[in-house]
């Protein structure tokens, strides 16, 4: 609780984020910036990612009653939208949208948390510290994607009847009642990989570590990696799709499919979606 510490952090907070060069290997602000590219054209909506997330991140199964009341804790959910001008039948299929925490650079949730339980890490993640959280739920109010999930019930006492608790991942906490939680890009995996890499005096290699959803996805629709490293696949994809992390309005060719959701609100998300393609002549 030193004043210097506060002031240092404060000045970092007060900067406009993301600033140019923040995630640049040459500038050395940060060695990592985790980002995703999600191809909606090959996402089949199969929910493998959701289940993998339940397995990896100790998500409670809430049951029918509570699901009905909106207490589902799926950190990643598959949304299904029909086209707005649909005729008698949805003749061009439907649209699936996997939605998880977008790890915004200028995250609306971070500024409003009274205790700083959610804040930005150096590698561009929007961290959520369960033990600091007092449950004011302001972050959820301010999240435009509504991907923050509050523990309205004491799930540890109900969601894992013995011996189901043996399945729990010891690398992360089981959240008790009264705290907010959300997708972390499987930070426990990232931390492990980063620590291993540092021990070997190198950076984390591309593809060395991926979140559970990316690892499970049967169609490889999600690409994950360190966007600071220009040779990583995800950085190449962002560049190829002409999506710039630092811009709130992209100037790109109409044939390119990259976009970020609700960019106009300027949260600068770390997840690039790639547009669904439909053969209009079919």
């Amino acid at each position, binding site marked *: *609780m*030193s*004043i210097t*510490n506060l002031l240092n*952090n404060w000045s970092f907070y007060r900067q406009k984020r993301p600033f140019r060069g923040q995630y640049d290997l040459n500038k050395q602000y940060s060695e990592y910036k985790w980002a995703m590219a999600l191809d909606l054209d090959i996402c089949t909506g199969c929910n493998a990612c959701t289940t993998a997330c339940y397995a990896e991140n100790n998500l409670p199964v809430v049951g029918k009653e509570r699901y009905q009341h909106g207490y589902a804790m799926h950190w990643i959910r598959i949304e299904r939208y029909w086209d707005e001008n649909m005729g008698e039948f949805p003749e061009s299929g439907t649209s699936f949208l996997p939605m998880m925490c977008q790890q915004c650079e200028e995250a609306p949730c971070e500024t409003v948390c009274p205790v700083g*339980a959610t*804040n930005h*890490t*150096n590698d561009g*993640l929007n*961290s959520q*510290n*369960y*033990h*600091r959280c007092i449950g004011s739920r302001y972050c959820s109010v301010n999240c435009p994607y509504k991907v923050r999930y509050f523990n309205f019930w004491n799930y540890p006492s109900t969601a894992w009847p013995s011996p189901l608790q043996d399945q729990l991942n010891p*690398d*992360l*906490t089981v959240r008790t009642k009264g705290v907010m939680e959300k997708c*972390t890009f499987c*930070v*426990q995996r990232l*931390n492990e990989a980063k*620590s291993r890499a*540092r*021990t070997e005096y190198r950076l984390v290699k591309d593809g060395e570590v991926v979140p559970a959803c990316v690892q499970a996805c049967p169609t490889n629709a999600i690409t994950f990696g360190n966007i600071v490293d220009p040779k990583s696949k995800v950085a190449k994809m962002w560049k190829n799709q002409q999506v710039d992390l630092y811009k709130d309005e992209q100037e790109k060719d109409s044939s390119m499919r990259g976009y970020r959701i609700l960019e106009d609100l300027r949260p600068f998300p770390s997840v690039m979606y790639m547009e669904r393609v439909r053969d209009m002549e079919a």
Partner: protein
Amino acid sequence: MIHRLLAAMFFVFAFSGMANAEPFKWGGPIGSQTSDGYNALGPVVQQPIEFPHYRHARDMGINCMYCHTGARRGYVSVIPRIDKCIGCHQSIESVRNKPRIKKLFWYWDHKEPIPWKKVNDLPDYVRFNHERHIQRFYFRQNRPVREVCGYCHGDVANMTVDRRVKALSMGWCISCHEKDHRENDVSMKTSHGPYECWQCHK
């Protein structure tokens, strides 16, 4: 008079933050405070075998990591597996009949783990990474092992059964992470430890 009192109160509050002080916490008999201001001496813990750290680490000069093998490669430092103990002790006939060694062999013969008590027990939601600290300070910066481990664990080499001597509180962790540490033994470049919540909180 009242002005002075108020001023004193103001300074106490204002500088208690700056001076990185931790509120007084009862942690042992009076006089057992550690020199850095943390009254943090833990209770004496009864172990199934009264393991003489001084014999191994001081008298024999065994490196801590000879037994605590996880410290350089994992999150936990690892209580040594029993075959590690047996590996040496089956050839040390001189102490073979000491009661503690007999107890050790009893566990070995029954293939049962020894129920050691946890001494340096952090809250369940904290992930302390031994590997990074050992790699950074022991291997990279080349500091003596007893100093590196001792910063958190105290002078275990002069203890019999281990006893907690530091507060192990979050502020105490940060007090060290805040300092600039030399990056290795030759370079004068320094860096501090990470501050991010997710480094330690899981």
